[in-house]
């Protein structure tokens, strides 16, 4: 397996903008350019999961209490005692399984994501590009004990009020100490929490893009006949501007299209014909610009933007 994903060269501070893109080279040698999940998205995913766990716990409690009452009403006191024990065991083991098993089981599934992460379009992956092993999933989730439950314990302890001053200070110290674990993700570039650190994993975005139509198929072919751009007119822009134009065309917002069309007309000195719509003009210009830039690409020249005059 390749290890390139793990040790992407760290940009010098201030040299490159902080970006979510990370190099991730597959064994076939292609860089997949993964995006790591932002702290906010992951916090949201975790809160959703916590909500699901609490709901399941409440449901489990209600279910055991209900079953206890329902069956207990039938039998004698002896039976009722035995039932109470059984229900207690079911509840204790169920709660244990929920607290420790929820994350592990969902992350071992093919999608490698808990329901909360699925909703936020995230998934867990091994940082070295290898497979996500059960060991790693187990290790990363065992660490939640000190990241979530330990700070919570101290928080509750302070809430319940340690009345004597020394106890209060101890709780405060504990809170600071464990807060360090909880806030660990804020202190590193990849937003790794302690669990990721120990398991060699990270959380990446796993969006499901749909294949949209090629803009050239939609409008380019029929429009091209009416528009003949001179070489210097097509040569006014580079790839960056082409992508902006693509976004504008895909979004189909009339005001933006009008504004962009006017800018381009002014820049290239285009005289609009009478029946010309902004959309048709932009589509035609997009087709011409892309054709020119892609031809240049085939000859090995990648024109970054309009300032890149090579």
């Amino acid at each position, binding site marked *: 397996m390749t290890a390139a994903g793990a040790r992407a060269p760290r940009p010098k501070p201030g040299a490159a903008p902080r970006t979510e893109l990370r190099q991730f080279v597959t064994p076939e040698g292609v860089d997949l350019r993964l995006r790591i999940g932002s702290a906010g998205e992951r916090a949201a995913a975790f809160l959703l999961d916590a909500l699901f766990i609490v709901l399941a716990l409440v449901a489990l409690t209600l279910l055991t209490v209900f079953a206890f009452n329902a069956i207990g009403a039938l039998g004698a006191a002896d039976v009722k005692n035995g039932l109470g024990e059984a229900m*207690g065991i079911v509840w*204790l083991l169920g709660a*244990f399984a929920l607290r420790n098993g929820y994350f592990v089981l969902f992350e071992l599934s093919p999608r490698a994501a808990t329901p909360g992460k699925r909703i936020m379009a995230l998934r867990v992956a091994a940082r070295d590009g290898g497979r996500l092993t059960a060991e790693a999933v187990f290790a990363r989730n065992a660490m939640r004990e000190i990241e979530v439950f330990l700070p919570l314990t101290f928080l509750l302890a302070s809430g319940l009020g340690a009345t004597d001053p020394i106890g209060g200070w101890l709780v405060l110290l504990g809170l600071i100490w464990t807060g360090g674990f909880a806030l660990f993700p804020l202190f590193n570039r990849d937003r790794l929490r302690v669990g990721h650190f120990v398991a060699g994993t990270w959380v990446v975005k796993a969006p499901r893009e749909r294949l949209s139509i090629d803009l050239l198929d939609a409008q380019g072919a029929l429009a091209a006949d009416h528009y003949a751009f001179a070489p210097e007119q097509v040569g006014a822009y580079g790839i960056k501007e082409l992508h902006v134009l*693509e976004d504008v065309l895909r979004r189909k917002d009339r005001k933006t299209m009008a504004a962009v069309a006017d800018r381009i007309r002014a820049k290239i000195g285009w005289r609009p014909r009478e029946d010309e719509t902004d959309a048709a003009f932009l589509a035609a210009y997009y087709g011409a610009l892309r054709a020119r830039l*892609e031809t240049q690409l085939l000859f090995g020249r990648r024109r970054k933007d309009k300032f890149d005059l090579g």
Partner: protein
Amino acid sequence: MKDLQLKSQRFRAEREWDWRRLESLLGRVERRSAASLSDEELLAIPVLYRSTLSSLSVARATSLDHSLIDYLESLSTRAYFFVYGARANVRQRLGRFFTETWPAAAKDLWRETLASFLITAVAALVGYLLVAGDSGWFAGLVPGGLVEGRDPTATTAYLKSVLYDGGGKQSGLAVMAAFLFSHNAQIAIFCFALGFAFCLPTVFLLLENGLTLGAFFALYASRGLAFQLGGWLFIHGVTELFAIILGGAAGFRIGWRVAFPGDRSRLDAAAEAGRSAAPVIAGVVLMLIVAGLLEGFARQLITDDIARYAIAGSTLIIWLGYFYLPRRRTSPR
């Protein structure tokens, strides 16, 4: 068919069908499981994945259609995770866990296990000596929740009754066992997680455990009941203490590697340590289930001291043999 002007358009038209096929197969795998595909479809995925990956390379080099490249990146990523993800079936993996992964991981931790055992043993000895010297130490060493009337002021008869008929309260024992199991398992996972803070909290947890043990022994020894306490405790305690010691060992492994990563980066060392110690913790939870069963049932049913010691001894031999006896490698890897 419209005539396609650009190379990138023709490129897309030629390959689009493959991409869509891969997308629909992946959609089915992710919704249900790999079992929902026929063999033929399953074998098609890696081929389609590689062709999509090469499409991505070509598209990056020749196409300026931004949304197309985004689509190919997302599709390749999804396919990558499927092709290189873990797909051994659950039964095989469970089997390997018991025959190989768990004992090998535990064996690999032998140094840490020894350290963790010594800490517990020394703490137990200290606890014993302290309480034997001055029974006033007992209250300081044993957490209040564990006492249940078993303190230096209790009568010998009461102390003895706890050993043989659960202090007269038979009901609720199974619940107690379930509670103790989940409590102990949580402590063991905690031991592992706390190792990250450079081992120290793990040491404290082990010390506390050992001190409590020693203090109880001193209390019972002062009434001449040490031998009987041993039987009562070790019938499940061998398994339970072993599990907690292993949990501590797993914590030490992580803490030590994070503190002293050697010639690797701290990040890599921590990841390696975490992965190598994780199976031990999974195993520890299983050991604690065994301990809970022994505590909940065997201890209540068997009240003969010698039989209790016999069970304790055989569990010790079984665990030691399972973890540390040299064994042939069962699989090539």
